[in-house]
């Protein structure tokens, strides 16, 4: 089966074709970072405009790259939520129009299920069950994954998402948007031990996370270092390094606890922050097998939606009625496959 995947939940427009026997046939991505850069964050209306402008091009390109035509598709999977409602509506509309025009099934996929299953696109894919740490600009959660659609939320952030905290601290240091990768690059030149930061919530039981306080610690330190409203040079690098180090240490402690509590030995790191090398390095020291998606499928993309959709469409699932977007959508509501 050829399944087209469409992702438009935030500021990346992604389209891919996944074949249930041959694997991923194509992968097209348009990142809107340049659109939102001058605002320092995602502007929902501009995101929706970019999606509707780019999506048909990407669909054509993805079909071409896969060497197939629209008529060769057997199903269309799209991100139904969570995400920005206006952005989701673009993908839903185009996906449903295409599926209706072809007379093939369409299926709304949970964005986080896409991320959770993205490591399956790697050559070295994990087997079920595993613990997943999902860390991105919009989400930070520990999830026990027993199979496709069988998820148990173990804990999550009570305030900022990990990537969001990265972006906000990066903004404090005048780094370009999106700040996370720029902060990580700057941190490489810094001394993570010059500024001591408290690891949030490590002394409390459970697997909840909090990054708001850590962000405030960075702000307080930045205010001390600021000259004419800017932190520059080695000061900025050291602060970036201290922040990144503290995040990695915090997640290390929590991951160890998640593995202990579940008794599992496989850990999957997914989401945009999974691209962070310091975090990968630190988590590789755990007494567990560590998996992460190929770098291109850490951030939002169509391939993970095509893959997740293919698992469900192949099992006979499809939209019963015309679905509304689900800007908020608990993962536990999903059906098993």
């Amino acid at each position: 089966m050829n399944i087209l995947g469409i992702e438009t939940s935030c500021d990346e427009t992604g389209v891919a074709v996944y074949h249930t026997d041959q694997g991923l046939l194509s992968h097209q991505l348009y990142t809107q970072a340049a659109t939102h850069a001058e605002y320092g964050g995602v502007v929902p209306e501009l995101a929706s405009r970019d999606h509707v402008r780019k999506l048909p091009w990407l669909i054509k390109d993805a079909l071409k790259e896969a060497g197939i035509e629209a008529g060769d598709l057997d199903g269309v999977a799209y991100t139904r939520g969570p995400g920005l409602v206006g952005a989701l509506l673009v993908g839903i509309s185009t996906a449903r129009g295409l599926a209706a025009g072809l007379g093939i099934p369409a299926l709304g996929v949970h964005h986080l299920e896409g991320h959770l299953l993205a490591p399956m696109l790697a050559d070295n894919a994990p087997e079920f069950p595993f613990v997943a740490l999902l860390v991105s600009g919009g989400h930070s959660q520990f999830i026990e994954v027993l199979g496709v659609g069988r998820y148990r939320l173990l804990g999550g952030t009570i305030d900022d998402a990990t990537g969001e905290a990265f972006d906000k601290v990066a903004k404090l240091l005048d780094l370009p948007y999106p700040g996370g990768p720029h902060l990580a690059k700057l941190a490489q030149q810094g001394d993570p031990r010059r500024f001591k930061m408290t690891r949030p919530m490590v002394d409390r039981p459970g697997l909840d996370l909090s990054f708001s306080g850590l962000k405030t610690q960075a702000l307080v330190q930045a205010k001390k270092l600021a000259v004419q409203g800017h932190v520059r040079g080695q000061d900025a690098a050291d602060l970036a390094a201290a922040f990144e180090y503290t995040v990695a240490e915090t997640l290390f402690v929590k991951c160890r606890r998640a593995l202990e509590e579940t008794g599992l030995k496989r850990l999957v790191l997914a989401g945009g922050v999974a691209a962070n090398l310091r975090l990968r390095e630190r988590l590789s020291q755990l007494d567990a097998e560590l998996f992460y998606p190929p770098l291109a499928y850490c951030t939002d993309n169509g391939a993970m939606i095509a893959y997740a959709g293919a698992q469900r469409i192949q099992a006979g699932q499809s939209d019963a009625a015309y679905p509304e977007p689900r800007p908020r959508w608990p993962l536990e509501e999903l059906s098993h496959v």
Partner: protein
Amino acid sequence: MPAVTDLLRAQGMAIGDVDCLAVGVGPGSFTGIRVAVGTAQGIGLAGRTQLKALDSMALIAMQAGPGLWHLALDARLGEAYRATYHVDDELRVVSAPELVKVGDLDRPTQGALLGDGWALNQLDDAAPLPEGAACEHWTAYADARPVVAPEALLPVYLRDTVNWKKRVDQPSPLRG
């Protein structure tokens, strides 16, 4: 979409049987237009249906029937979409849609006011927006429009600014 499929099913048709799909691409509600345009792009990409872009305000004027129509629609933020059409056997665009301040909505010397925009400038005798989908002569208007590729079918917004502060204008927490 359910409305479209239900309508077609009543005629014993499916979307794949439609040869040409004419779509109102705005101006109007941004999200509403994007749903229509996105859906049509998808249908067009299936490869069996040609697409045409129609001026949403012209469709409203044609819905209102014969006459010289000055149409103003509430565009929020103290602005309105304004256009003038002459409708008889065919549609003539007297002035194409533009975005204007509501304070600039002045009563024209001839013709009738139409739409919810005029009342924003205390002109309260405008005809209300017509209801239903019946529309005089629209097929002739659609016939005259060129076929566009799915990726060329795009919303007409008229407003290109967003109500967001640019980063250079945002206050820095490190100052003051």
